[in-house]
């Protein structure tokens, strides 16, 4: 009886956590380059239950009744890396990658160390020193076609363009290539906020043939609004059922305590 309450409560807590993930997806429905998360629920390992009510030769004999689940738990959050819709924009510094890969951006922390992060959000702008930056102020890395080095992209005042070989042209002259990295295991990528991912062992695919970078285009969030709203409803009702289970367990307990146990 009491165990039932804990089982139902574990259900309520996991549904609550699932609702957090869904809410975050819905909150980021307009975030460029956002990838939706899905929380997966798993049941706790079953336990075997048995009783010793049966008497054989004056001794209690254990009888196996069956297995019992002790409720549900959070198994993990899986990110859906499907491509989001593309939206045309007016800006020459908006880019999007068709297919796999992430733009590489560089962040400098307070102590001057730089670290690379990866993003699908190609909403960039030119800062007052002429460097291409993300909305969070991180430098966008590119392959300098003259020196063949990866470095922050200096756009200056030039007219930015992209040719069919993914070269960034400044006033019509090939100058850079946006540095693009991919990962063999997306499961190991960690979301960092700021539309960025953190990951180890990137594979540089800047010069890969299959890569296609479009200009004046932004990749929108890949959140499926209808699906998320439906899950939101399901989660709420499932939470409600667990709550009802607890309530009826409580009522039964009340009967046990107040009626069965009454001495008249």
């Amino acid at each position, binding site marked *: 009886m009491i165990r039932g309450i804990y089982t139902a409560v574990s259900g309520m807590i996991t549904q609550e*956590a699932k609702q957090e993930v869904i809410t975050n997806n819905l909150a980021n429905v307009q975030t460029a380059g956002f990838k939706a998360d899905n929380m997966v629920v798993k049941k706790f390992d079953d336990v075997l239950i048995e009783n010793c009510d049966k008497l054989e030769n004056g001794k209690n004999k254990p009888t196996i009744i069956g297995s019992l689940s002790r409720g549900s738990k959070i198994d993990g959050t899986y990110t859906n890396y499907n491509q989001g819709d593309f939206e045309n924009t007016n800006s020459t510094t908006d880019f999007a990658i068709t297919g796999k890969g992430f733009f590489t951006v560089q962040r400098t922390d307070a102590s001057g160390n730089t670290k690379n992060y990866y993003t699908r959000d190609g909403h960039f702008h030119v800062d*007052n020193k002429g460097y291409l930056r993300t909305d969070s102020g991180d430098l966008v890395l590119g392959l300098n076609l003259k020196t063949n080095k990866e470095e922050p992209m200096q756009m200056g005042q030039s007219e930015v363009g992209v040719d069919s070989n993914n070269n960034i042209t400044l006033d019509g002259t090939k100058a850079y290539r946006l540095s693009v990295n991919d990962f063999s295991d997306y499961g190991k990528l960690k979301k960092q906020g700021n539309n960025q991912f953190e990951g180890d062992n990137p594979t540089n695919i800047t010069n890969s043939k299959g890569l296609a970078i479009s200009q004046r285009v932004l990749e929108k969030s890949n959140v499926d609004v209808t699906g998320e709203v439906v899950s939101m409803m399901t989660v709420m009702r499932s939470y409600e059922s667990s709550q009802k289970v607890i309530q009826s367990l409580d009522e039964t307990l009340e009967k046990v305590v107040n009626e069965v146990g009454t001495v008249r």
Partner: protein
Amino acid sequence: MLRTIRTSVTAMQAASSKMDQISLNISNLGTSGYKRGAVEFKDLVYETMNRKGYPVSANTTGANMSTNGTGVVSTTSIMDNTEGELELTGYKSDISISGRGYIRVKDGNNNTLYARVGSFAVDAKGRLTDSNQNILDIRFENGKTYDNANFTQDNYTIKEDGQVLISDKNGNTTVGHLDIYDAIGDNAFRYLGGGLYAPASDATVYRTTSSKIVQGSVESSNVAMEQEEADMITTQRAFQLASKSLQTADEMLGMANNLRK
């Protein structure tokens, strides 16, 4: 559950600051020289679900670890520097720029401000001033100043390269140049209102010759109504979704509250 409420609130705040920007853009649809601003979004930090009271699998550090995001925030507005359409007015007093850059004016306290477009009338002292008494900054030559150049309503011409000519009975005299200034960076100039801009503290303003002065025309704002309307619809729906999540969270909290009758 309180996390869900806070996440929904961040989403509503972000959507309303985007809405602020959209309404600013739409209300300046008819403002000459106005440049639209664009607000985008970014997600907030992710936190682990491996916290007290949460039943989580042993997998809490490796691949697909259990994390949840904490919402969304709007980014600072980035100015869209695309040029608006140039509308011919035929009035000599209307000055605009084809290409990048700004013309310079001086306000009453002799501060330098910048503008994309302006209608300048000749005031009592013979100076070219806009409706807010800001004086057009001309680089005078040959010892000329506003005091001795003798501007009248219709005796001056400004050429494409900025050359300012005054015609009188002796023919045309060059009195100076109207220079165009520009700075690197999309957000190098800050909009002050009244059609005026000021450079950001770290912007390097320089003189440019690659743009042209167009006398007798006005640059319309570069706001595209259709785009703003579409943005407005999606933003409103995003706000609505966030308020629905908030409502759901509230209902769920109510259920938790009702566990004990």
